[in-house]
């Protein structure tokens, strides 16, 4: 592995100044966190280069040589399965002159060869060979091919989801996810055969700060009935009904959150495919045997979720998405469709089309989101707008104990508690100089 420099020296915002921007007790947040360059730069360092970041589903790199390219923050990475069957994640930047070494989004490759000088790297990221190798050996006293591989990240998986981090001091993935695994199982573990991503990946640019959609999915149940009324009319034939507020919850742990009820099919109804609703209903008993009665009622229920920092999903609606930062005011949205591997092919096709027509750039529900998120970001260009403290005070007194739901549980879905928890974790990470300073048990 190539030599790594110490952390860059630059004028980082102080922990004290950051804490002034986020008041979790009152539920007030400054729009500056969606706009300022210095905060964004600190996020790339202390969140994206530090946390476990989702990079791929195992099904996308099923065989040796299968690869895809994606990003961790603004760092390009290659996710590749080696000849030994292991999945590795390495930097998509040549240690010679820094050029990208892979330009395809996905495929199968024996090696990754840099276009610039022909340095060739194996499926495991190791430097295999380079033109004029003998001259390097003659004239570079410290030349050692084994130290000139592509920079490797740590990789770990949870039930098919692959995560990577470039921080050697990060806690284990299991610790990072904590109790959130219980909630992830609602989408990942309802069937013996496990899950897969359907092929393809729709990407788009939204000119918003990456946190705006991430906080929307972590707990903004409130916007659905207003923003998405037209989409609901299109897909269901009627507007969004009055949401029940008893026996619906927000839960969070380590900044990861989910808002949900136990209506079992509220989300999946939106796809406009009655056979998929039927599929969920038929499997209720089976899922209850695997996950218990409570979660069997959550599998496709109305709700939304974000795994900190940038991985979001809608249970039952089966869209999986990441909000990839491209500067403080731009987000590159990547979306996939998750299905049970053993689901019939005809139903997988219905999921694919259903997700496309609801939650994709052309989707009847998603189309209205981007407009909100861009403008909720752009107003923060104004000096006076930045002086405003935004209201995140809903449900300050809604914390409850629940026998079966792990994490911090709050009653009622119209509630900002998950969003406050998201920003609590965000603040902890930005204020900490390394993982040892990140408070646990949030």
């Amino acid at each position, binding site marked *: 592995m190539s030599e790594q420099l110490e952390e860059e020296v630059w004028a980082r915002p102080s922990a004290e100044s950051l804490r002034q921007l986020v008041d979790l007790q009152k539920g007030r947040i400054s729009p500056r966190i969606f706009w300022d360059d210095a905060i964004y730069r600190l996020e790339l360092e202390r969140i994206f280069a530090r946390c476990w970041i989702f990079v791929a589903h195992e099904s996308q790199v099923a065989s040796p040589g299968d690869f895809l390219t994606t990003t961790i923050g603004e760092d390009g990475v290659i996710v590749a399965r080696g000849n030994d069957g292991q999945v590795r994640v390495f930097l998509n930047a040549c240690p010679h002159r820094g050029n990208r070494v892979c330009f395809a*989004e996905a*495929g199968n490759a024996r090696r990754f060869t840099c276009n610039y000088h022909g340095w060739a790297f194996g499926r495991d990221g190791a430097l295999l060979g380079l033109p004029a190798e003998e001259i390097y050996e003659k004239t570079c006293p410290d030349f050692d091919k084994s130290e000139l591989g592509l920079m490797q990240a740590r990789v770990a998986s949870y039930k098919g989801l692959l995560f990577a981090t470039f921080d050697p001091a990060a806690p284990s993935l299991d610790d990072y996810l904590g109790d959130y695994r219980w909630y992830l199982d609602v989408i990942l573990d309802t069937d013996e055969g496990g899950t897969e991503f359907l*092929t393809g990946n729709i990407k*788009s*640019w939204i000119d918003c700060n990456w946190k705006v959609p991430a906080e929307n999915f972590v707990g903004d149940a409130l916007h659905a009935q207003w923003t998405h009324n037209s989409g609901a009319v299109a897909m269901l034939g009627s507007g969004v009904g009055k949401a029940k507020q008893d026996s619906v919850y927000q839960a969070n742990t380590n900044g990861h959150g989910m808002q949900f009820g136990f209506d079992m099919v509220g989300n999946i109804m939106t796809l406009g495919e009655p056979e998929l609703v039927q599929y969920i209903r038929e499997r209720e008993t089976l899922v209850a045997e695997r996950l218990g009665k409570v979660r069997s009622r959550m599998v496709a229920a109305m709700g939304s979720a974000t795994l900190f920092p940038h991985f979001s999903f809608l249970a039952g609606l089966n869209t999986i998405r990441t909000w990839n930062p491209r500067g403080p005011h731009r987000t590159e949205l990547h979306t996939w469709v998750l299905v049970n591997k053993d689901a019939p092919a005809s139903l997988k096709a219905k999921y694919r089309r259903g997700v*496309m027509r609801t939650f994709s*750039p*052309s989707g009847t529900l998603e*189309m209205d989101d981007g*407009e909100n998120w861009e403008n909720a970001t752009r107003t923060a260009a104004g000096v006076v707008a930045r002086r405003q403290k935004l209201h995140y005070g809903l449900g300050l007194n809604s914390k409850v104990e629940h026998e079966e739901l792990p994490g911090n549980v709050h009653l009622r879905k119209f509630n900002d508690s998950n969003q406050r928890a998201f920003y609590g974790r965000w603040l902890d990470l930005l204020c900490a100089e390394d993982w040892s300073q990140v408070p646990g048990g949030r």
Partner: protein
Amino acid sequence: MSVSQVQEPHPADAIRSPRPPQFPALPDPRLVFEIEQFLYREARLLDEERYEEWLGLLTEDVHYWMPGIQARYRNDTSGGPISERMAFYDDDLLNLRRRVTRFMHATAWAEDPATRACHIINNVEVELTDTEGDYRVYSTFVNCRGRNEAEESWLAGRRTDLLRRDAEGALRLARREIYITQTVLLAKNLNVFL
């Protein structure tokens, strides 16, 4: 690599006599004119948000497909856009109708003020098929959308259509394939038919 090792990219005879493309015979210009006018009128219906009339141009079994585009290496055997991959549109008439329902609904907040769209249609080629009254039509488009004050987004692409003459003699769109040039859609949404 020395100069003497540089190979000719093609054998010399191929340079002297490249093979001409095999295009089918040109159809009757009146048919080409009719189809061009169909496409231009269709584009104007979309620009003017006359979606009900636009739906009326489609056959009952219409398939409207705009696949997602991926950058893959040339030697990738899985090839170009395939129907199993995620798409922007992969719709039948019912689902196009659902999209129109949203566009036209009073609570489609992102459509008010209206998106200003302009479809520029060009490079129209018409080919007869083995089926009487079915025409394969190639065209290209540039689409510009303006939103609010200063937002603008551009899309360019190629289309392959199947037009069919119905029992009354009118042309209808039975199939459309749309291939854009972007792998990452450089816009927040796709609130337009292409």
